[in-house]
């Protein structure tokens, strides 16, 4: 029974995934240039937020930027989005759609969920069917007529994700996307992000909790104190998924200890 | 050394010594002209706490009868203005000579007036070739009073019971204005004022004392006037301004008035070489009197300092209104021309009224300018304390009394 049940569950999951994967607009990774960052420096007054960062984000990969608070991950992400001007170095972002969700909510809190989706959808000329799919998969249809400013933390974050996803961006850049979400929603979102990556898009996630993305990450960049401690493909790291968080933390502690000495 | 050489050495040394001594003597004994005396400063002995100060270069004033008449008329009109609080020029020893053969007014070269408004405090400093005794005699004659001689701070002072006093500030032996025997600087007037002048003179001679001489705003206003043969400045008293309709409030913002009379021909104005000329220094023409046709114009400049720039504009408007009306009313072409040349300029918070005329025409010009004063609605200015208009002198005491009630009685 259990064997049959597990087999049937796996089959159902696979079948569901196949179905869901069919919904996601596809992109041929070979036709998309990567995002390249070379020698990036960013200074805010006397603080060096980024100090010589080299990173490449390939399409069709799930790329995690990990590091403790204040390590420069958000600054790096915002630089990739064009919201921060580098002090030095080169940032080459191909002319493709970029989608983003920030750590803080970034939508019109005086408009409804539906209004926000429509306004940003119009700006990006989104595909209506895909937008509806995003709405459904993120469970926002139950709050579509609610004023965005009145949403709970979780729904507010889902709205931001929806705004990012509905435009079918080639590269999706997310800053702590799972912050306020419940476990069920987290799983659903992780599935969605995985499907999105599988459809050929680049997914960049900035997080300090690598464990949540351990079974999906394709490329890992560890950032500490504005510098890259490690930049490697997941497959090149001989670390099990459940040890990935500990692995990165140890690298950071080593760097921190070395800095103190 | 040989004897010949010894002698030569001695002679040479003596010659050198003599030469050094001689050269030193030459250096020490200045056989050149003696250092010129410092220029006479008419206000040097004026005490600090006064409301008006004025100076008259009598030599220049008398040099031309037309100038004297024109100046006298103009000063007269000015002093008859309702709120004039300046020096009582017309009650001067120099301008209204007493009947005393020993006191020749033409021997006076400079007169300085100082005093306090609406108070008997006041005196004049007369630079003249007079003796103190002659001045005292003249006063005794006029006032029917006796004087007693006294000494104060090394200066001779003659006091009377009725008030006036005479002090000798410089008798020529102290290296005064003109080094010749006889008194050359007399202080004549109210006893307190004369005593203060003596104190100032004494302090000026004492290197360790600081003379309490004229300073502050009044000094500044006097210095701002042009260097003319008549110069004066006084503190304006707004409480003496009558209730003029519309313009009274503007006039009451006046704080200081300064005025000067100059002769508008190069060399005709001022004194040569910084010395004090006497009447004898004036050079008459061949027939003994200056040629009237060549009399230089007299330029009168009045500087009226007001509370602020806005009020200065208002005061200027009042003055210009008076000029405009006079110009309109007059049919005298020459007067009209002079009126058109009259200017009223505002510089910061000072209104400068500038007018010029021939000595003969000045009285006509000034009469008109001053006659077009606004009419008072009432004698007393509204909301102000009653003005003690007639002071101590009373009308007719020693000459015309201005409405300001200047109570400096002419002691002569």
């Amino acid at each position, binding site marked *: 029974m259990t064997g049959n049940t597990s087999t049937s569950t796996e089959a159902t999951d696979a079948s569901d995934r196949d179905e869901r994967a069919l919904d996601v607009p596809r992109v041929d990774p070979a036709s998309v240039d990567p995002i390249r960052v070379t020698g990036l420096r960013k200074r805010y007054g006397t603080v060096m937020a980024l100090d010589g960062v080299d990173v490449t984000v390939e399409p069709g990969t799930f790329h995690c930027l990990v590091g403790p608070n204040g390590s420069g991950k958000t600054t790096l992400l915002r630089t990739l989005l064009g*919201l921060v001007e580098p002090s030095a170095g080169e940032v080459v972002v191909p002319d493709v759609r970029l989608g983003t969700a920030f750590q803080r909510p970034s939508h019109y809190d005086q408009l409804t969920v539906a209004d926000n989706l429509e306004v940003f959808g119009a700006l990006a000329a989104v595909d209506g069917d895909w937008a509806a799919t995003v709405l459904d998969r993120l469970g926002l249809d139950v709050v579509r007529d609610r004023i965005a400013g009145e949403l709970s933390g979780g729904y507010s974050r889902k709205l931001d994700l929806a705004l990012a996803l509905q435009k079918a961006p080639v590269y999706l850049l997310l800053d702590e996307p799972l912050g306020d979400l419940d476990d069920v929603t987290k799983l659903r979102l992780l599935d969605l992000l995985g499907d999105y990556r599988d459809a050929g898009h680049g997914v960049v996630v900035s997080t300090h909790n690598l464990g949540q993305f351990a079974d999906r990450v394709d490329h890992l960049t560890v950032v500490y104190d504005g510098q890259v401690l490690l930049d490697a493909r997941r497959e090149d790291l001989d670390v099990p998924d459940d040890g990935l968080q500990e692995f990165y933390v140890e690298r950071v502690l080593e760097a921190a200890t070395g800095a103190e000495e | 050394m040989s004897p010949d050489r010894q002698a030569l050495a001695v002679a040479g040394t003596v010659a050198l010594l003599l030469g050094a001594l001689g050269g030193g003597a030459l250096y020490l004994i200045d056989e050149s002209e003696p250092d010129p005396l410092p220029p006479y400063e008419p206000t040097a002995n004026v005490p600090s706490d006064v409301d008006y100060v004025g100076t008259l270069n009598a030599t220049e004033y008398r040099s031309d009868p037309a100038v004297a008449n024109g100046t006298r008329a103009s000063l007269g009109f000015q002093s008859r203005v309702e709120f004039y609080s300046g020096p009582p020029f017309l009650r001067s020893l120099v301008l209204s000579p007493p009947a005393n053969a020993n006191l020749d007014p033409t021997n006076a070269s400079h007169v300085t007036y100082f005093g306090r408004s609406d108070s008997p405090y006041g005196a004049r400093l007369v630079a003249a070739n007079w003796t103190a005794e002659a001045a005292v005699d003249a006063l005794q004659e006029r006032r029917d009073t006796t004087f007693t001689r006294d000494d104060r701070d090394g200066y001779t002072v003659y006091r009377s019971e009725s008030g006036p006093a005479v002090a000798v500030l410089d008798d020529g032996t102290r290296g005064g204005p003109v080094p010749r025997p006889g008194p050359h600087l007399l202080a004549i007037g109210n006893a307190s004022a004369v005593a203060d002048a003596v104190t100032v003179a004494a302090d000026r001679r004492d290197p360790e004392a600081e003379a309490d001489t004229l300073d502050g705003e009044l000094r500044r206003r006097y210095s701002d006037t042009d260097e003319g043969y008549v110069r004066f400045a006084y503190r304006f008293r707004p409480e003496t301004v009558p209730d003029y309709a*519309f313009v009274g409030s503007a006039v009451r913002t006046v704080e200081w008035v300064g005025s000067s009379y100059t002769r508008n021909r190069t060399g005709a104005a001022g004194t040569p070489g910084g010395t004090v000329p006497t009447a004898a220094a004036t050079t008459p023409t061949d027939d003994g009197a200056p040629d009237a046709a060549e009399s230089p114009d007299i330029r009168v400049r009045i500087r009226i300092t007001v509370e602020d720039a*806005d009020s200065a504009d208002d005061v200027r408007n009042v003055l210009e*209104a008076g000029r405009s*009306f006079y110009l309109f009313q007059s049919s005298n072409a020459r007067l009209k021309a002079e009126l058109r040349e009259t200017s009223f300029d505002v510089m910061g918070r000072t209104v400068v009224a500038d007018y010029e005329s021939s000595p003969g025409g000045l009285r006509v010009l000034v009469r008109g300018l001053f006659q*077009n004063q606004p009419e008072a609605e009432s004698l007393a200015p509204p909301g102000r304390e009653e003005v003690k208009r007639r002071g101590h002198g009373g009308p007719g005491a020693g000459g015309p009394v201005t409405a300001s009630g200047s109570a400096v009685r002419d002691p002569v």
Partner: protein
Amino acid sequence: MSLRTILGKELRWSRHRVVALLFVLVLLPAAFAGASVFFQHVLPKDAPVAVVAGEDVSEEEYDVVAASFRLFSKPVEYESEAAAMRDLERESVYAVVSVPPDLDDPDVERVNMTVTIDGDVTPYREPSGALVSIVARTMNRQLDTRVVVQREVRGDERKLSSYLLPTFLMIIVLTFAFAYLPYNLAREEAVLDRLRVETSLDTVIAGKLAFFTGLLAVPLLVFHGVGVALGYDVNLLAPGAVLGYGLTFLACGAIATAVTFASGFGTTGRLFNVLVLFAFLGFSGLVYPVGFFSPLRRDIIRRVPTHYAMLTVRGSTLRDIPAAEFATWLGGVALFALAMLVPLKLSMLAYERGT
């Protein structure tokens, strides 16, 4: 004791808000106290008055009339009455008087002189009466000829309430620009990052300024409706007025937005905008004609573009003067609005660089 703790917390809060508190408790009160300097006269003493000297008038006749007016106004010489009347409509002068040509004629016993004022400049009606009285008394006191000075009102005598209608709308426009627009922008600060990714800050701000400028049509219509209902003869929909209000809002909105960005959406920026609002309210000559004020304040007002917008609005709404008559002034306000886009753009660039 909890009250002490709370008070202590307020002290801690104030330590972190020193700049803002300095602004509110020191600068703002000082500005208001200092502004008292600009209120010097109850009655205008040097409002400009046109004195027209015709061909038959001598220089002395002109001088006498001008001198009489100079005591309580500022006479300005004009050669033609038409030009003077035109400037009367534009509030460049507040009265027009023609010098009678027979003032110095000894055969003439009595001379009439008319002082014309604009009935729409309500605040000047009382002062003009005082001026006429002063001039009459002064001239009759000094001259032999009897001078009868009469005051004539051009157009209807407008009530103060209707005179103030366009002024109140301008106050609304300024408040909208300096108070509501920054508030609206601050409410959307969080979404600016997303907007910068999806479109551009330039597009967002341009859209906001354009939208709110267009939205002004609503209060404009409301004011106009109220004016009609109350029976005021005021046409707030006159093209000159619409342009005047619109350009004013654009210019001031640009300034307010620039301040908001420059201050990083902080409290200091909001307070500064309030200060700028008061400055514009105080120095645009909204209520009293500019001739009423002290020379210093008058000088400042004449350099403020919104003053000319207000003159245009008043001329258009109260006197039905066509907008073309105010082309120069409207052009100036438009240039001002364009010029204010420069600091706006610079502040936006600085904001983008600083995030």
